[in-house]
């Protein structure tokens, strides 16, 4: 019982979980003749989330919790795949290492620019985005083909013939998505660094007076974000067998939106990785629903709905509304 309660508490962002369940039930009722709620389709949604930038939202959560922003994740996503493909031709292990190193390096650079040189993270990461997009075109002329057993590891599937409906096995990308989510949850809840992030995002000056090394925590958060973005790019390139130069275009916007839907406060200090995880799922369920709709409806409504969802999910967080509901309107 205690364990169950603990598990429940760790998924505290109730409204997000509720929205997720609601969406899932609604979709399965509306599309019941098209087999929406089948094992294969659910795994398909998870795979889509793991491939198309779901990880980026997890990384972004680190930075947003510290009260900063990172616009360069989409560019890192593309660059890491390209670097992996190019250096992987020399040695596959070197390729994996360099691909991920790119993300850490760019994250560290942004962190130093923001903390030591006191440049707004909007500008620092925007400049990094321009620079990395340029760099991609400098080092590669066309998309890089990725081959070899080591480099295409993420395309592998495991547990063949174990789960009903998934005879050909479950892609390991899905396990990685869960693994990294749990890792992030552990980091944010059980470590000094995680607690520090909330303190810095909540009130930077207070955190500094408490003796927290604010700069160090911010740099770590940026590096973590870069690391996860690079990992995500490496995984996409590895599972699809090629690294496209324009991959991840405007994914940074979607990553921020997933965080917002997941109940992460964008001014920092509040929010959970479990919330972000459900935010990611909600995003990709809507994305999948649009492939089920009849052809007369424009796919661009998807963007409209996503925008409304972001507005709605933050609107619910408003302090003013909360006070009206209770019946005592406080002076804010």
């Amino acid at each position, binding site marked *: 019982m205690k364990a169950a309660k603990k598990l429940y508490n760790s998924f505290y962002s109730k409204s997000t979980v509720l929205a997720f369940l609601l969406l899932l039930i609604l979709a399965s009722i509306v599309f019941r003749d098209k087999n929406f709620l089948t094992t294969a389709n659910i795994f398909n949604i998870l795979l889509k989330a793991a491939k198309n930038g779901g990880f980026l939202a997890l990384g972004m959560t680190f930075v947003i919790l510290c009260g900063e*922003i990172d*616009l360069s994740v989409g560019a890192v996503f593309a660059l890491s795949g390209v670097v992996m493909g190019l250096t992987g031709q020399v040695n596959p292990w070197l390729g994996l290492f360099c691909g991920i190193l790119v993300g850490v390096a760019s994250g560290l650079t942004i962190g130093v*620019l923001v903390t030591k*040189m*006191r*440049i*707004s993270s*909007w*500008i*620092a990461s*925007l*400049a*990094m*985005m*321009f*620079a990395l*997009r*340029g*760099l*991609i*075109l*400098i080092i590669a002329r066309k998309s890089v083909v990725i081959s070899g057993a080591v480099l295409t590891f993420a395309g592998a599937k495991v547990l063949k013939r174990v789960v009903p409906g998934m005879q050909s096995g479950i892609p390991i990308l899905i396990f990685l998505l869960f693994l990294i989510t749990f890792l992030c949850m552990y980091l944010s809840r059980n470590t000094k660094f995680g607690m520090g992030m909330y303190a810095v995002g909540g009130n930077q000056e207070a955190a500094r007076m408490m003796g927290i090394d604010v700069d160090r925590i911010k740099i770590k958060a940026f590096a973590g974000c870069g690391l996860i973005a690079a990992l995500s790019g490496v995984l996409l390139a590895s599972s699809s067998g090629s690294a496209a130069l324009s991959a991840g275009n405007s994914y940074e*916007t979607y990553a*921020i*939106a997933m965080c*917002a839907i997941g109940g992460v*406060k*964008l*001014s920092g200090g509040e929010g959970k990785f479990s919330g972000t995880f459900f935010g990611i799922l909600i995003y990709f369920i809507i994305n999948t629903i649009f492939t089920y709709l009849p052809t007369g409806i*424009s*796919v*661009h*409504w*998807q*963007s*409209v*709905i*996503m*925008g*409304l*969802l*972001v*507005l709605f999910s*933050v*609107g619910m*967080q*408003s*302090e*003013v*509304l909360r006070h009206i509901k209770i019946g005592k309107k406080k002076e*804010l």
Partner: protein
Amino acid sequence: MVKIKRDYIQIAMLLFFVILNSLFTPNFFRIGNFNNIITQMCPTILCGMGMTLVISTGGIDISVGSVMAMAGVLTAKLMPVTGLVPAVMAALAASVLVGCFAGIMVGKLRLQAMVITLGLMLGIRGLAQVLCGGRDIYFNKLGETGKALSLWGTYKIGGQIPVQIVPMAIAVLLVWILVEKTVLGRQIQAVGDNIKSSSLAGINTSLVLMIVYAASSMFAGLAGIFQAAKVSVAAGSSLGQMAELDAIAAVVIGGTPMSGGKASVSGTLIGALIMQMITLTCVMNNIPDQYAQVFKALMIVFAVFIQRKQVK
């Protein structure tokens, strides 16, 4: 004194680029080149003026690019039915409505500006794409009114100066007067400095914020219409893409702090000019686009870094 010093460093940077260009760039001092600068700067200046106001209240408006697209597409859609001027008016009214909505959410409900405008950015971009049905609207297929709107982007005053200078000059002048000479301008900066104390001092903060966001959206709508007119096509997916980032960069290079409380209109003008100079230096010296991007990034960081030290 400090203010003069800060302006001085921006002008010094601008001068640095002008001198650099006059030494290395062939044909830099051609009138055609200056006309090019004016046409290309138009959306950044227009959005930047609104963005200066928004950032000086401590907020941010990342929906301007999408509002540009919506205004452009809406004008192109309504034009054949209603004629040119009503269509432009309707598009501007729609933009102002979007801004008012953002202002109410930020001012009345005290939500974070970034999330609200992010939601609007996604939503309005989608709306623009739905409106134009996934296809670009070419003005030359719209008959006489299409030609008339194209003139808004290609007409040259006296056969020389591009028409874009008119909205730019009006916008800069209006916002400068607003910030420097009016009570509302004082109130905007007060709200950015400390929203609680300015509320206690009797400023209607939610009204001020609504006006600011509405102004930002209106300028964005105007920028969208002029940009669409310049290229003679309204494309829901590509019009105004990244415009918000250009505008933010111009504002920050211009010395308006992201934390709010201070608006520097002349700074934003110079910031936009510096950005344009960087692009121009790369383009006119045949530096490949990919290297130009890296160069641009370095220059932005450098410009902001110098700013920061001077302010401290």
